[in-house]
């Protein structure tokens, strides 16, 4: 009698659990098409890290850069292996860009979002770094770091100092293009060219639809072998 009562009571536990096990499988099967979409969207919109805020960092070291420049010049090194180059993550200052004649001097970051442009000149993520033999597209605000660009002319030398050496580019053209003009640059070229741009004109108050593009060809700096 007692064992029968015990069995009846246990049935209130085992039967629902058994039904649940089978039931969950069946419900997943029934709702699989919808669940699949939910999981796809879910995996896109969830992540253990909340990546909405990014903290910037600095790998550029003036002393290391000077040392690298000295060594490369002394030994007349024209090529350096990729292993000697630290490719930075986004929002990292990896260099320093300057043009002595016009007084341009700004930290150079990888990435060109709004946070970076408040701190320096930003290199577009989809362009290459100095030494990699491909176009370098960088921009800055015309009222802050890129203000001196209003004085730049053809023939000026722009320098980019990095931890793996100094790179110099000679300005070959200064042009004004509309901000939507696709022909202003070509990132698929196999030629190292620094393309610096900023809003134009400089002293006008109001939203600007034009951009001042400075095209500068590489004249010195070691090539990265990769």
């Amino acid at each position, binding site marked *: 009698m007692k064992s029968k009562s015990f069995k009846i009571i246990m049935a209130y536990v085992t039967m629902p659990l058994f039904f649940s096990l089978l039931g969950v499988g069946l419900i997943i099967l029934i709702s699989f098409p919808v669940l699949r979409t939910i999981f796809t969207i879910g995996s896109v919109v*969830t992540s253990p890290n909340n990546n909405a805020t990014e903290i910037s960092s600095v790998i550029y070291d003036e002393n290391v850069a000077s040392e690298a420049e000295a060594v490369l010049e002394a030994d007349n090194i024209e090529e350096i292996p990729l292993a000697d180059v630290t490719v930075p993550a986004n929002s990292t200052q990896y260099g320093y860009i300057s043009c002595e004649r016009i007084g341009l001097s700004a930290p150079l970051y990888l990435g060109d979002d709004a946070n970076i442009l408040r701190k320096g000149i930003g290199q577009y993520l989809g362009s290459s770094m100095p030494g990699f033999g491909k176009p370098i597209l960088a921009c800055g605000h015309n009222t802050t770091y890129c203000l001196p660009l209003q004085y730049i002319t053809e023939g000026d030398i722009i320098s980019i100092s990095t931890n793996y050496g100094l790179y110099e580019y000679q300005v070959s053209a200064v042009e004004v293009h509309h901000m939507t003009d696709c022909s202003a640059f070509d990132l698929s070229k196999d030629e190292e060219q620094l393309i610096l741009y900023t809003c134009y004109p400089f002293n006008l*108050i109001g939203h600007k639809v034009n951009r001042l593009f400075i095209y500068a060809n590489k004249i010195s700096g070691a090539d990265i072998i990769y």
Partner: protein
Amino acid sequence: MEATRKKKIKEYIVPGIASFILSILLTVMGYLIGTYFGLFNKALVIDAMNKSTYYESVNKYCYTEALDYLYPSNLDESVLENVFTIKNTYNQGKNYLLAVLNGDSYNINTDYVRDTLTSNIEAYIQSNNIPEESIDRGGINNLIDHICLIYSKNLSVSFLYYYNSLKAIFRQLIVYGLPALALLSIACLLVILRSNKWLHRSLRFVSYSLLAATIMTSILPLGLLISKKYQQLNVRPVYFSKMLARYLRASLNIYLVVSLILFIGALLIICVIYYKKKSLMKSM
């Protein structure tokens, strides 16, 4: 032998299967009702917006974005003073939210932003004695338009578009699916109740269904609530992510309420079983 086998099928196997099907039906109904009163409950969306500092964050975000437009325009941060106010943002945001949740359209009114920005820019030009040749009036109008657009875009909650589309589909499910599920559940109940001579034995199977449905309706929401997966939303901006997380948590709690109702139902049935059996034993 044959009679015993038939009896076993009728008294145990048939109600067992019907009970299992009933548990599935109750679970699906539970999720549908939970979704209707949870995920697609307007009050939860409004509550999440109110309690998650949403409007303050929108203001702050608009201010930062507008500042990035100001930098290249040779204008000072001071022109943004009083442009984005909590009062205006809250009113516009709430009106927009209520209208869209009701299925109506609403264009965010940016007149206040526009007027304040215009007067601030004029004041800046006057106070700094900026000559007319250094002013691009068209450019200033463009700038004001852009900033108004930022404001309107940040206040227009993009997920509401998908919310309303999904709600429309879901309404169809409720209208056709819920009655069908209810009918099938009644059919299952009838099968279970007719399968046994004694009512208390039939009701046992009903209680198994209710208990199984309780487990199945609570397992997913509990899992999400405990693992806090709903907080790991990676949608930008952060304030939007926080609002969504709050809304999802409230929605998940509704499923637990449904699960609790099913559990209470099961307990009631178990009480009825106990008293029925007792009265039967007495009468015997």
